[in-house]
């Protein structure tokens, strides 16, 4: 079963790569046929990916919460969130930005080494499983929002400078990009909040010393604060879409830093991802 899971994993990666190439062609040529095939390959890859995760979990008696697995789950969640968002905003061009990220996550997951026996016994709890799942989904949503925020700033720059490049023609309208970003954050933020809450409950239960001073916990709090501010500013319309796009980019940058810190800073109690 584990072997089948590995084969399916590589199948999924190859299909995502094919989808990336097709999305790229679609982005350049804007021919609907390419986007159809790209979506088809992404969907097929997603099915293989899902089956691979499921089979591996069955073979190993659960999904180990190590670095490679987290990245594989993040790639899976990213494709899932992309499909949900694409269904909502009906713009396929975002696939050109998000599917390659999934491919990169899949590849990087295979380059990371797993430290056997490093996991804390505190992990053996259902709350942590849900905590990780929620955070992974939220991070996927934040990545989608980050891609949207970046696209917004690029498109706004081109509109301001009166550019008529291919990029300008291919990217959706500012209103559409802003909508995607807002919805992605609106989807991710409650998941992130719930995930953090579960983590905090578990920390209080087990009460490891100075858990709140852990760099990863503090950074997670910062991410929560940034996206919380984004939501408040956006929905109260107290900031321009440009300002909130920058805020979303900062938030995604923090998510990336958080992922790196978790794997490079040995200090702190939060070592589940190692």
């Amino acid at each position: 079963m584990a072997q089948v899971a590995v084969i399916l994993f590589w199948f999924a990666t190859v299909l995502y790569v094919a989808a990336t190439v097709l999305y790229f062609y679609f982005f350049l040529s804007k021919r609907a046929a390419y986007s159809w095939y790209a979506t088809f390959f992404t969907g097929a890859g997603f099915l293989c990916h899902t089956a691979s995760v499921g089979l591996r979990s069955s073979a190993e008696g659960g999904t180990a919460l190590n670095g490679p697995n987290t990245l594989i789950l993040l790639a899976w969640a990213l494709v899932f969130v992309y499909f949900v968002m694409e269904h909502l905003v009906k713009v396929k061009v975002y696939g050109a930005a998000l599917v390659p990220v999934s491919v990169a996550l899949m590849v990087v997951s295979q380059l990371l080494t797993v430290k056997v026996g490093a996991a804390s016994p505190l992990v053996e709890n259902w709350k942590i499983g849900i905590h990780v799942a929620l955070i992974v989904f939220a991070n996927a949503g934040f990545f989608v929002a980050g891609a949207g925020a970046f696209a917004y700033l690029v498109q706004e720059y081109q509109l301001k400078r009166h550019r008529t490049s291919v990029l300008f023609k291919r990217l959706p309208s500012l209103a559409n990009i802003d909508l995607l970003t807002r919805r992605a954050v609106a989807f991710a933020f409650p998941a992130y909040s719930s995930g953090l809450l579960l983590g905090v409950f578990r920390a209080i239960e087990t009460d490891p010393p100075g858990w709140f001073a852990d760099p990863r916990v503090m950074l997670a709090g910062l991410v929560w604060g940034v996206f919380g501010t984004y939501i408040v500013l956006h929905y109260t319309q107290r900031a321009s879409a440009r300002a909130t796009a920058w805020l979303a980019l900062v938030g995604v940058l923090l998510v990336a830093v958080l992922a790196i810190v978790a794997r490079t800073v040995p200090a702190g109690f939060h070592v589940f991802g190692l």
Partner: protein
Amino acid sequence: MHLILVGLSHKTAPIEIRERLTFPAHKQAEALALLTSGDVIAEAVIISTCNRTEIYAVASGADEGVDAVVDFMAEYHSLDRHELVRSLYFHHSEGVVRHLFRVVASLDSMVIGEAQILGQVKEAYDHALNNSATSKVFNKLFRQSFEVGKRVRTETEIGENAVSISYAAIELAKKVFDTLEGRTILVLGAGKMSELTAKHLVSQGVKSVLVANRTFERAKELAERFSGEAIRYDDLYERMHDADIVISSTAATHYVITKEHVAQSMRGRGGRPLFLIDIAVPRDIEPAVNDLSNVFLYDIDDLSTVVESNLEERMREARRAEVIIEDEFASFAKWRESLEVQPTVAAIRARADVIRLGELEKACKRLGNLSDKDLQTIDALTCAIVNKMLHGPTQRLKTAAEAKDGYEYIETARHLYGLDDSEGRGHGRLRDLLNRRTKDVVETAGNEMGDSLGC
């Protein structure tokens, strides 16, 4: 059967001549009836738009057909034939097909990629069809041309990018707002250009139109045309707060809208962007307005740059459209070949030869050991019988094919000999043999279609 085209367009004739040669919808029935009443023209379609008048015809002869159409045009519009001919262009057979395909693909239009021409050609074809002026050839040709038009529009981006100032403004506004439905526009100045741009914006679903002008009466007049609201010039800056798009085209010699005005109206807008189009010369809106957050300003030069860039894009797409045209042209040429007398005669002879050889083989088996001399005699005998049987019909077919509805004879002959059942369709050895044999006959006979089977 000869395809001909006689026409004139914006490329060959000025408006003074074009306007004298139009065939409006209510006159098409009469014109088509006149055109096809003689012995020369079998089918006809008249395309008449503001930029072109073209008569497509299936004629019994190329030169007679052209003469008949030119005479008809001159007589119908009471024009001097020599003067008329100077503005006309002519196409024959393949040239007609290619030209029509280029026309429906809007490659021959004044604005490449414009969408109207396909509808206009469809309308012209409908007139001809309803007046029984078309038959097999034009039904096939025009339906295929619509396919070309459709393919070009769906497989290329030839009509995607705006190539007029007002449409470029709409395209840019859509890059900001996505859809213009429910938006509010403010028209400053009641000039022609701002009216045209406003008209296009309204057609995109804009909710309300505010019009401001120094002369309030003029503002009211324009506002009524769009079921909008005229506002006092003094209230302009206050009402700008409600607008999503501002179109400015006044005759003022100084900036009417400054950065300060816009900054003030942006307060309390809840993050709504403001898109300003300044089509006045000298400009009405201070360029520094573009520095404000969520404000996008385009003047006439910016819009012209967008139009130029889009035109270049359309030219690139036109090259892709040419490939589609060639593809469809090949398909039509293949079909048309089946209506030509030469390949038909060749196919009949090939079929007869296949039957003859089959029967000869069977007979030889039954007769047993025959000498080479006997075999040659029997072979020559069968050849002679087949040749004599086919000589009369093929000669008469060639003569009949030259007539006005000649292709009908060809079609009948193909049907009687079952050529279309075996040639190109179906499968099996007989079809392969026939196709090979037909090819051999055509290649050996060349243009001179002899009566012998080469035996």
